[in-house]
């Protein structure tokens, strides 16, 4: 029979080799491979997240762009409205001003007319008095003939 003490030496060698392989080959290599697997998984997740974020950002950018456009349209509309409002306002203001000026002028004219009339009245009364005095040849007591004069003036 060929079974000798070599058998036990080989058992010993085998066990030792298992220990060594576990220590220097399997352990480090599988740890490294697990680390790499994790890194790849992380990278993929990161890429996925990046893609998702890009999508979100694109969506947000489109939204912002749309909002900005809307706002711009709104502002333009508002501006236009404000412009027409301003024009309208200026128009009405001008009209009011014109009316006021016209009214003032009218009042002035009326006043002037009134004053002229008043002056004229006074002058007429004075002329009448003077005429009458001349006619009568004597001084007329203005106070005595006030009623008469007043009537005269009113008739003018």
């Amino acid at each position, binding site marked *: *029979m*060929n*079974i*000798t*003490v*070599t*058998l*036990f*030496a*080989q*058992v010993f*060698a*085998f*066990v*030792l*080799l*298992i220990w*060594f*392989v*576990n220590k*220097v*080959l*399997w*352990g*480090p*290599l*599988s740890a*490294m*491979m697990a*680390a*790499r697997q994790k*890194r790849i998984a992380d990278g993929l997740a990161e890429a996925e997240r990046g893609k998702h974020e890009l999508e979100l950002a694109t969506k947000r950018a489109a939204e912002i762009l749309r909002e900005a456009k809307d706002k711009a349209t709104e502002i333009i509309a508002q501006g236009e409205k404000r412009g027409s409002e301003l024009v309208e306002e200026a128009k009405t203001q001008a009209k009011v001003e014109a009316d006021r000026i016209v009214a003032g002028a009218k009042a002035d004219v009326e006043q002037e007319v009134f004053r002229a009339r008043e002056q004229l009245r006074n002058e007429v009364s004075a002329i009448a008095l003077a005429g009458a005095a001349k006619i009568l040849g004597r001084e007329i007591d203005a106070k005595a003939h006030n009623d008469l004069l007043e009537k005269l003036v009113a008739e003018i």
Partner: protein
Amino acid sequence: MSATEHSGGGTVEYIQHHLTNYCVGDCDPVTHQAAGFWALHVDTLFFSLLIAMGIVFASIRLTSRLSTGTPTGFQNAVEGILEFVQGQVRDTFPGHNPLIAPLALTIFLWVWLMNFMDLIPVDLLPLIGGYFGIHYMKVVPTTDLNTTLAMALTVFVLSVFYNFKVKGVVGYLKMFLFHPFGKFFVPVNIVMTLIEEIAKPLSLALRLFGNMFAGELVFLLIALLGGAATVGAGMLVWLPLQIVLDFAWLIFHVLVITLQAFIFMVLTIVYLGMASTDEH
């Protein structure tokens, strides 16, 4: 008749010479076979330990400069083997045991490399050994039953250990008492389970030993073709035939050594997996 006898004697001598270990200790001085238990097969130990050291040093060299990035060359190859073994363990072994995968990897690498010694020309290393005064040398450690049985026994001890650990003493005993035929055939069950359990390491050891021994024998026979016709015009026929046959057997044997290493590994996983399951 005498001529053939002489030739036959040479052939037998040649083959025996190649299949005899370098024995130290309790050896027969004439046949150089181990005569008792205290005999060391130095060549078996030398080559298997050389290969083991090669594995260890290659591993240290590899793991000292691992890169998490894209693996190249040697690292890639080793990673491939590792993933292959890992896949086998994951497919075959139930649950998780941190020992199984390194054990399987060790078996695969060591057995494959020891088998690979078979592919080195049969006369090369003994010739070199001859210059150093070593006249008996069996290069392939797996053609020594001691090596294969050593591994098989280690696996067996582990499987018994896991049987006890997972099933418990009672569970393990129950398996012996009631396993194949139920509770009415207890004596038969004990015998059957005993045979089954003992057959596992024995078949593991003998399969590998037998395949490698036979493979080596075929190499030797092919090597004899050229050697048998060293004179005359026979060389013109025998030498090319030897080369062709050697090459063909070499290619076939690459498959055989890989297959044997693989079978040893897978069966180890299966046996330990059976030991680690608690359902019968």
